[in-house]
């Protein structure tokens, strides 16, 4: 009887623990945009803002996943060494591009509206970037990777129905196609972008 009780308590506490750490994708997105918004509203230099935004991106974006997605079928032809090089180059490129895009906005106000669970791996979170006199209201959807519900990660931003990851994938594909599929050319372009 005692063993049964202990087992029951153990099972119950495990269940509670498991659920208490699971983060809802919409709450995750709202908290991420609030953090980014707080940085963008700070009275600090642009380069300081970029550095702080990079830290948030490292924590909340599945950079490795986005990197392999952007590579398309070419990822299947990479050896381990090339994969390692690519991921490092991609991370530098992504962080620079992502933080530079975001740093142009001052005090962006984003409201999370709803979410749609596609399957156990993905949830789409729908939000609105509130319009100002400078720009119209913009619909932003977030593709959240939820394979590990305790650690949801952003995989794509879909602005007015246009996927940034898909655009990036086609951009990489264009570079590979115009260089006979030579991955080293893409490496060089990524490296140059990050350096400039």
């Amino acid at each position: 009887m005692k063993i049964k009780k202990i087992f029951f308590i153990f099972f119950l506490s495990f269940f509670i623990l498991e659920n208490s750490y699971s983060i809802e994708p919409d709450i995750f997105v709202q908290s991420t945009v609030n953090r980014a918004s707080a940085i963008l509203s700070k009275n600090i230099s642009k380069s300081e803002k970029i550095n702080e935004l990079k830290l948030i991106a490292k924590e909340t974006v599945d950079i490795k996943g986005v990197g392999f997605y952007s590579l398309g079928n070419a990822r299947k032809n990479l050896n381990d060494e090339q994969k390692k090089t690519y991921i490092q180059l991609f991370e530098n490129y992504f962080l620079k591009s992502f933080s530079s895009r975001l740093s142009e906005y001052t005090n962006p106000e984003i409201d999370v509206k709803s979410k749609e669970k596609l399957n156990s791996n993905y949830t789409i979170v729908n939000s609105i970037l509130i319009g100002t006199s400078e720009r119209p209201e913009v619909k932003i959807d977030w593709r959240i990777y939820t394979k590990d519900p305790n650690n949801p990660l952003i995989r794509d931003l879909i602005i007015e129905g246009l996927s940034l990851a898909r655009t990036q994938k086609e951009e990489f594909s264009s570079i590979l196609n115009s260089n006979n599929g030579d991955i080293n050319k893409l490496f060089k372009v990524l490296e140059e972008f990050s350096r400039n």
Partner: protein
Amino acid sequence: MFKNFVIILATLFLLMSNVNAGSDGDLVLKKNQPAEIKDCFEKINRATFAFNQALDGIIFKPVASAYRVLPSPVKTGVSNSLNNLTNVITIPNNILQGEFKKAGINSGRFIINTTIGILGFIDVAQYLGFPEYEKEDYGQSLATMGVGPGCYVVLPVLGPSTVRDASASIINFAGGDAWYNVTVNNDTRYFSDFDYYASKLTSGVDFRAKNFNAIENLEKNSIDFYASVKSLYLQDRQQKILNVNKIIETQNDGDWEEIDSQ
């Protein structure tokens, strides 16, 4: 001219009734997948793209920059008026696509906004609770009839398009655009050629102004700006043809499922 338009309309109707039997949403989706659309004239396209960028730098960017400082109500009013004018192309295309209810709604929108809304300056229909306006054109109608996009092309001044969409826009000049008919095609007392070309130029400036920061940002952060613009244009076009604004309806999730990083 009206006769020409009726002939084109009737031909398209016939085409539609024949093609629809064999075409469904999935086929239209597949045919218009951005990755499936070939860039057959890439070298010429890239050269035209460079020309358009130069033109943008000389004309559209500075003018759009000045236009942006106008008071918001003026910009919204101009944008509303230009949008209202596009109804005269949208309505016949609603009919061609078999969307008669939308054709009725858009006709109501056009009449209300042109009269009470003072030549479309105020979007009264929106205040009255009309559904969100979706532009349609002859390229979209051909796509819903099952006509494939053909190759991707970049037109001088006008920008990205496909062979299908560029060819379909000829219908506008053959009677399919009532605004062109009353300004350029026919010698009316009230409008002149200038009104048509001024409206088109203002449309370009309005688009550039609305997307001013987004375009600058994209150019600055792209490793291949031409490929980025092409991808965004084709994604947008695919969604407009299917009348959806959700990426999950146009993107194959299998692309993502293969990526396992956790």
